């Protein structure tokens, strides 16, 4: 019985590692858009991984994996934005510092994206990120937990906000 349990645990861990490897850029992108420094990004990243691990057994496959990962990541980041509490953990991190102000052109583009998105409210950031991933409004609504109509209205407001940002 213990061998069976151990085998199941090892299989779960292997499956979890596989999911994280395949979706790490999605998770990290969300974290990056919801924080202002490297440490905070790493904290968020770790929290999301914990939430994914805990939620994995309850995942019923009704949505695709990427949608589910987005839902968990966004909900984690939106709650963290509200709480802004630092846990006493050693964070996992990616081997890259996106806040590094180097002259690299790609870093400049990324910085510009971060600047625009971080000026939005946390909820709107979530919507924009999903929209930038070419998700339909219906799916965005399902992930965020609002109606499709609400997504349409919010997207209109977000566009206005971005327009005003570029005028400033």
């Amino acid at each position, binding site marked *: 019985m213990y061998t069976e349990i151990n085998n199941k645990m090892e299989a779960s861990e292997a499956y979890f590692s596989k999911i994280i490897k395949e979706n790490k850029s999605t998770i990290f992108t969300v974290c*990056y858009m919801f924080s202002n420094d490297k440490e905070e990004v790493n904290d968020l990243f770790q929290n999301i991984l914990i939430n994914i691990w805990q939620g994995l057994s309850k995942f019923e496959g009704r949505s695709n994996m990427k949608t589910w990962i987005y839902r968990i990541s966004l909900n984690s980041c939106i709650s963290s934005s509200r709480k802004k509490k630092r846990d006493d953990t050693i964070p996992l991190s990616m081997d890259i510092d996106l806040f590094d102000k180097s002259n690299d052109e790609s870093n400049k583009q990324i910085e510009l994206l971060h600047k625009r998105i971080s000026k939005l409210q946390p909820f709107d950031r979530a919507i924009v990120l999903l929209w930038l991933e070419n998700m339909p409004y219906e799916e965005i609504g399902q992930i965020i937990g609002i109606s499709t109509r609400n997504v349409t209205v919010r997207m209109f407001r977000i566009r206005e906000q*971005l327009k005003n940002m*570029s005028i400033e």
Partner: protein
Amino acid sequence: MEENNIQELEEMRQQLNILQEKLDQQDIVNEKLLKSSMKSKMSWIVKYIIGEVIVIPILAIMLSGIYVMFNLPFYSYIYILLICVADIYMDYRINISSMKPADYEKNNLMQTVKKLIKMKKMRSYQTLFGFLLTCIWLFWLGYDMCHLTGVPNTELYNGLVHGCTIGMGIGGVIGLVIAYFIYKKMQSTNDEIIKIIEAIDDLKDNKEN
């Protein structure tokens, strides 16, 4: 204006693609996490030894009460007391003073692995000798309990003596079994830390490749 706005969003989409391409090439770094989990794995052993230091004097006082009550010769009491003090000292030397926090942070963790293997060996010797010496004490105490002098020969007292002898015998055996499980857990803690060091080494190899 509307066209500019659409263009802006398209720009953002391209920027997001750049970001995600960059992130796809990165590894998740968890070396720090592994190192900190190494330190925290040993912390239960430190707490156990602190517990020993607190509990054993209390048990020594209780045991001395039994020696006084049954008028037992104090030689075996002094004997077991010396064993306990030596055991606590060895626990400290083997599990605490032999490893420093810096040992978990070093760049060359192979030294740390060697220390951990040596720790396991020393612990095995300590446990073996501890078991033998404790068994000698249990037999010695049992012999003394069966050959009491200077105590009233009443039914109540005889009942007490028998009860205590059996209780201490059972307690002694249970104590030895618990000690054995604690020993096994300490050894497996060392094994886990050695595995973590191997994982850190693998991480470093992957980065270099």
